[in-house]
């Protein structure tokens, strides 16, 4: 796979960044973390509500628990959306070309996010407000909730396919829509990682939510006692975090390697270390006697905050590493375009029209630096080449792409494989015809 033919190098927006790059990068990591926290709670809350409502068909008291979980979605979903705007804005500014390219390539699925989430929110409201009215039609009621939850599970996958695709410009020519973006090797592991994180964070949220003194447990959840509910929440957080060790490892090893660095790995490992520490604390809570459960909540949150921060930073480092090289090339292309635009504007102002040379003659300008028609300068003359390669333009092209070393009296010829095939071919043909006949096309 020759990268010069499959790696697109677009130009960047030719306006300066609004703030210092480093400031924007710090901002995006923090802002994204705030957003994803509430997304986790929205997805987790919706999932738990669905599960408990289904359990509640057999064991009545779980219906009330499902209802309480459904109520948490109202606030969490609105905060998830509004907190998503800022990181979206900063990503748009920092990675304009990469992000918009991925958006365009997965465009149909990407734009579907809008109606899908709006419908999910409306279904969520319907689900919440029709609880009593549909108490005799549990099947329908659960179906409404299930549709909302299904959308909440689908939409993150669309997001993930996008923010992943933006990192791999070499894939941009291979992608045909959302499904081919989703099958890039690391998307599904990342998705699994996200789902487990949602469950873990929601479990911890439950500890805080049900554990607060203002929560009227006997009134809202008859048949439950506080320690039992808290234990269930801790079990969820523990189980999900335990599985994360496995899934996280899978994510790491499915990452395309261009973004991986020692520093990034170290940061991730630090996060994993703290996650393991949190596991021991979570375990202690799971097995704690009823009277003492909840004591370690704050330490657990602090420890996992470090994990989550490390992951957010590691994620950013990976992104940076993956597109750094491409970004360099883009900068170069942007500069070249900038000069070309200025020159063309000047020419237009002066009324000069660039003579449109035939392609071969134009391409030959590069060769003319060393190859003169008759004289030997820093390379054999064109006459010499015409003798050696009479009627064999293809041979010239092969040589130019990977020159051998025949004449030690000249400096080695550099390789020109990076030039377009068509240009090389046209230049070769032009060389073979140079200086022939009365209307000889002399060189430059």
């Amino acid at each position, binding site marked *: 796979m020759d990268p010069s033919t499959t790696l697109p190098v*677009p130009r960047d927006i030719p306006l*300066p960044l609004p703030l210092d790059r480093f400031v924007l990068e710090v901002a995006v990591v923090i802002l994204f973390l705030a957003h994803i926290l509430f997304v986790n709670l929205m997805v987790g809350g919706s999932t738990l509500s669905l599960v408990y409502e289904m359990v509640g068909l057999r064991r009545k008291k779980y219906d009330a628990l499902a209802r309480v979980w459904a109520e948490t979605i109202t606030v969490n979903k609105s905060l998830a959306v509004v907190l998503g705007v800022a990181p979206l804005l900063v990503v748009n500014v920092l990675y304009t070309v990469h992000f918009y390219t991925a958006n365009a390539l997965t465009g149909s699925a990407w*734009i579907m996010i809008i109606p899908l989430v709006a419908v999910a929110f409306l279904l969520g409201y319907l689900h919440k407000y029709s609880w009593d009215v549909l108490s005799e039609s549990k099947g329908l009621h659960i179906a409404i909730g299930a549709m909302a939850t299904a959308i909440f599970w689908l939409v993150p996958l669309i997001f993930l396919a996008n923010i992943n695709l933006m990192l791999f410009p070499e894939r941009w020519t291979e992608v045909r829509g959302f499904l081919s973006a989703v099958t890039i090797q690391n998307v599904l592991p990342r998705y699994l990682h996200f789902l487990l994180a949602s469950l873990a964070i929601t479990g911890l949220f439950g500890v805080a939510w049900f554990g607060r003194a203002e929560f009227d447990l006997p009134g809202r959840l008859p048949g439950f006692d506080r320690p039992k509910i808290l234990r269930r929440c801790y079990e969820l957080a523990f189980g999900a975090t335990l599985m994360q060790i496995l899934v996280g490892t899978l994510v790491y090893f499915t990452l395309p390697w261009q973004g991986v660095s020692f520093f990034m790995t170290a940061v991730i490992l630090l996060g994993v270390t703290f996650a393991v520490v949190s596991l021991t604390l979570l375990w202690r809570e799971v097995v704690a006697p009823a009277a003492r459960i909840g004591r370690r909540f704050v330490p657990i949150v602090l420890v996992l905050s470090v994990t989550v921060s490390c992951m957010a930073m590691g994620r950013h480092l990976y992104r940076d590493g993956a597109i750094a090289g491409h970004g360099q090339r883009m900068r170069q292309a942007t500069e070249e375009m900038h000069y070309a635009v200025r020159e063309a504007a000047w020419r237009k102002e002066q009324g000069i029209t660039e003579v449109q040379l035939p392609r071969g003659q134009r391409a030959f300008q590069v060769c003319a630096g060393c190859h003169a028609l008759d004289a030997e300068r820093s390379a054999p003359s064109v006459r010499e080449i015409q003798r050696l390669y009479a009627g064999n333009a293809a041979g010239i092209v092969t040589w130019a792409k990977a020159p051998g070393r025949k004449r030690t009296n000249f400096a080695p010829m550099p390789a020109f494989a990076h030039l*377009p095939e*068509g240009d090389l071919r046209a230049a070769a043909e032009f060389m073979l015809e140079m200086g022939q006949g009365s209307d000889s096309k002399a060189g430059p």
Partner: protein
Amino acid sequence: MDFPVFHTDFFGNRMLIAVIAILHVVVNHSLAVGAAPLITALEWRGFRQRSEAWDRLAYKILRVCFVITTSVGALTGVGIWFSAALVNPAAIGSLIRVFFLAWLTEWVVFVIEVCLILAYYLTWKTWGQRHKRAHIALGGLLSLSSWLTMAIIVAILGFMMHSGHWGTERSFFSAVLNPIYLPQLAFRTPLAMAAAGLFTLFLIPFLTARTDPIRTAAIRFVSAWTLLWVPLCALGGWWYWAAIPDWMQQLHPVALTTMGFGDWYRQVIVLLGISAAVVLGVAVWGVCCPRFLPRWCLVAPFLLLVGMLGSYERVREFIRKPFVIHDYLYANGIRVEDYPLLQEQGMLRHATYVAHREVTAVNRFACGQDVFRLSCSRCHTTRGINGVLRKFDTLYGGEPWNPEDIKLTIRTMHVSRPYMPPFPGNEAELDALSHYVCGLQTFPVPLAGDQVDGVRLPSD
């Protein structure tokens, strides 16, 4: 030029952003910016008159607004981001560099607004009468933050139409203080207030029983509210109209009626006038004899308003053409400053995702298709909405088209139709495009967007 080309060949890219954005404007004017102060006023009235009925009605109206703004309203707002990036990435990519701080500030205000509306709604019942004063103050704060979000975004909308001194000064404040900003804000603020009044009138028959005395009292109050804002809306509209530059004023006929219905400009103006008069009439009736106002009378004004708002937004977007950022970026997504280079050397030489770098006799169709993608597809489809085939049909009729005629047309289109950008390519590309369009007349191959077919890199 530097992005894959997202394209929907029936619906068209303009329609995508239009549907999302107009829905957003209807919701944010009638159910947020205008609704927050109106609902607070209703709550305050209930407090002053010690009336449960006013309080209950205000709450019900808030519930409707809450549900719709936090779902459809919020998501269509994000949807404008998403669709703008798909439809014209060069434009939105440029705007966010210029206006980043404005949008960041807007976001901070949004967060405050969301927190306030969550608080306002969720504490209504729990705070009850005990903390009514504080709750009304909350409503006031919500109203202010809602209005602030509008105040910030209108600066950007104004800039896109008339960039003021930004062309030479390139500073944040020169962009914000563009000549269209304050006039447009002076128009939109009372418009939003009146729109909320009309939406509430629309809701009242659904939220109250016919025999309930609150119904007539509310109709009277809300109608008075609407009437109060109408003269301010007219004044603001006048100022806005005066601020629109001459070159944009000329585009109004096509903007309002589309090219196809250009002859109907006068009729459409009359229709808009009648709509406005109906709205006014209902509001006056509501103040004078609310008891005899039939249900459909309360429903119609809001629907007429939606029509008028949609029409106004289309005009605003249209009169900005041929630019999407005045004097900087054309509607086709190509920068004004890039034109000399592209018209000299061709777009295909410099675009990222094209099949060929130069037009030859063999690749002319594929090149023509790429040229269409780059220079026409942001606004046009081939056979769908705003399709070029239908336009050329109107121009030339059903006989086989002549590529030379089409070349001539496209070359000078920006002169005969000033809302069109100039053709950004060179002669060979113009030739390829003309042959492509002619080819489509006999064999209408649909143009799939890059989100379906993927992108191409040049093989030569």
